[in-house]
């Protein structure tokens, strides 16, 4: 199969794309380049403009301004049927009046490719559904329909494959299975995949590059590990996993780090991990990077000298045990609630509700953001 679909896809370039609908702007001046052969995920909450972006690339919407280039060719004014792009729709949109085989062969017939049925069978074998080629979509399960939709798209060897939350309708177990399957198909066929999703875990497991979108703009883009370990904005820090964020003034800075005063405690952040180095800044650290201490550590004079930041004392207000890890909520006066994930290396929780604790983390795990958290009450994840 890999031999049959050996095109490696094409670059996608969005240049200054703006899309306005009557009454609101979905996308504002979006610039984005997706290199050929990559598995690219657009991640964001609903209404952030990610599906609109996908529809613009597919040609189902027309941009208000900007250009769309696929493989260097300007397709902004091309109709959807003229673009070398195929979509796996969120609803699958399989034609109900055709068999599975006819659905998969549809695009091949339209382009006059020779041996359409043979290629369709081949694509169905790739998604392991060839034995159901004669069925109608309504006779298939959700997961099978999803695979037919995938086969119907990739059989055309598009320069670019668009996936619009294709796994959204599946249950958790099937979704995991399909995530792995999609990734292995992408490895096999080597097409450029543009995947739109609101599921941060899905984006991180599947994509090699993730762009986090918010309010019609890309907040941050990079490899999943990079985004997770070094979020640059409060939105990314909170949308991609959880974060403990603190806001305070920079009180001193050196060539290697900055020191921020958080309610009287000095916390250090490596200079290259901080987006801003002066004034009021928001810094953060991931909950699993934190260590709970039941005694005040013997801190040496200045913060950072020991290579760790320490915050406390605080009171444990909640302990929830979830098997692999335990989540503690620690209320530190003047700072707020800190979330700590601790691996359960020993039996059960280490500290109980009401205990007095200190929280510490390695300075290298801290990050400094370019903006501040919006003061909107958020439901915790």
């Amino acid at each position, binding site marked *: 199969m890999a031999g049959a679909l050996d095109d490696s896809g094409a670059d996608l370039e969005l240049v200054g794309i703006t899309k306005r609908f009557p009454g609101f702007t979905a996308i504002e001046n979006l610039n984005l380049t997706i290199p050929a052969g990559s598995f690219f995920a657009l991640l964001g909450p609903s209404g952030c403009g990610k599906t609109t972006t996908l529809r613009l690339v*597919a040609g189902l919407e027309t941009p208000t301004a900007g250009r769309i280039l696929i493989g260097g060719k300007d397709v902004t004014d091309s109709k959807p049927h003229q673009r070398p792009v195929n979509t796996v729709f969120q609803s699958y*949109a*399989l034609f109900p*009046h055709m068999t599975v085989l006819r659905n998969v062969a*549809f695009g091949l017939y339209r382009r006059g490719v020779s041996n359409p049925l043979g290629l369709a069978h081949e694509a169905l074998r790739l998604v392991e559904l060839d034995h159901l080629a004669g069925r109608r979509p309504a006779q298939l399960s959700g997961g099978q329909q999803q695979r037919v939709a995938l086969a119907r798209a990739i059989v055309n060897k598009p320069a670019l494959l668009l996936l619009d939350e294709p796994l959204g309708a599946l249950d958790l177990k099937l979704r995991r299975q399909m995530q792995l399957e999609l990734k292995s198909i992408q490895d096999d066929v080597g097409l450029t995949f543009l995947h739109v999703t609101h599921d941060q875990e899905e984006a991180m497991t599947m994509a090699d590059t993730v762009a986090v979108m918010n309010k019609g703009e890309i907040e941050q883009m990079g490899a999943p590990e990079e985004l997770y370990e070094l979020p640059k904005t409060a939105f990314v820090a909170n949308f991609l996993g959880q974060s403990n964020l603190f806001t305070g003034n920079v009180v001193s800075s050196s060539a290697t780090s900055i020191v921020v005063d958080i309610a009287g405690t000095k916390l250090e952040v490596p200079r290259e991990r901080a987006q801003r180095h002066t004034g009021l800044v928001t810094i953060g650290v991931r909950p699993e990077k934190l260590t709970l201490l039941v005694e005040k550590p013997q801190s040496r004079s200045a913060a950072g000298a020991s290579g760790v930041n320490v915050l406390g004392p605080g009171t444990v207000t909640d302990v929830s045990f979830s098997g692999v890890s335990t989540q503690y909520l620690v209320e530190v006066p003047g700072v707020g609630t800190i979330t700590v994930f601790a691996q359960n290396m020993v039996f059960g929780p280490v500290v109980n509700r009401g205990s007095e604790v200190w929280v510490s983390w390695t300075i290298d795990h801290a990050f400094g953001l370019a903006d501040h958290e919006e003061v909107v009450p958020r439901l915790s994840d």
Partner: protein
Amino acid sequence: MAFGAFSNVDTPVIDAPRRRSRAALWLLLPGVVYLGATYLAPLVSLIVTSLKAPDLVNFDVGRYLYAFNIGNYGTVLGEYWPIVLRSFEYAAIATVAALLISYPLAYFIGVVLRKYPLWQALALILVIAPFFMSFLLRTLAWKAIFADEGPVVGFLQHLNILGANAHLNGTPFMVIFGLTYNFIPFMALPIYASLERLDLRFLEAGADLYANPATTFLRVTLPLSLPGVVSGTLLTFIPATGDYVNASPQFLGSTQTTMIGNVISDTYFNLSDYPSAAALSIILMVLILIPVGIYLSLTKTEDLL
């Protein structure tokens, strides 16, 4: 208490379906009686009438005796087959014309106007509005509009499209026009019902899979709206074939445009030749069933790719 609850469980569970099926039969009874009285009995009576023979002993107009005079069928068919043929021809042309007019109309209301529910409702009311007035009156209105002294004929004569002594009323064109006009709602509404349910994401999928708008229409929209097209054409073709209003000289037709419905009506009411009228009715019924059966079996093949 608990045991009592358990001991009661078995009986109703097993009995319920049987009792329900008997109830269903009782509920069916009024319908069966109604169909028997208003459909089956008249049909049998029609067949019996079609086989009757004139009373040669006490001859009188409209007096016929029970017989098995199967020759009635041959006689009427021999005499009226050109008119039967003409009826099918007019009805077929009118059905195609009504389809060509109704499909875009139904598409406009069901798909284009979907974004504007108020306009959609208004357009639907406009399609149904003619029903608020008797179709006899509406057909007569067309007769006035297309009259020799009327505006249309005058205008067409002025443009030299029609000759000085030409008419529109009484021509086959007028009869087909009337049939088309009168049956458009019956064609448009079922097609609208199909198109109104059409998931527009299928059209996007078609475009995404390299089908241009025309191909998407032929391969996706049309097959998905086929149930509406089939019921619309049947609701138009069947009654149009037997129609006797549009073709009658009192309305849009003339003696040159007589359809089989007019013959049946004349034979029955004017000639009181009940056996011939009944035989013609049955012939018409059977002849309609043949194309309808072929049509239905053709359109049942869902795989139209």
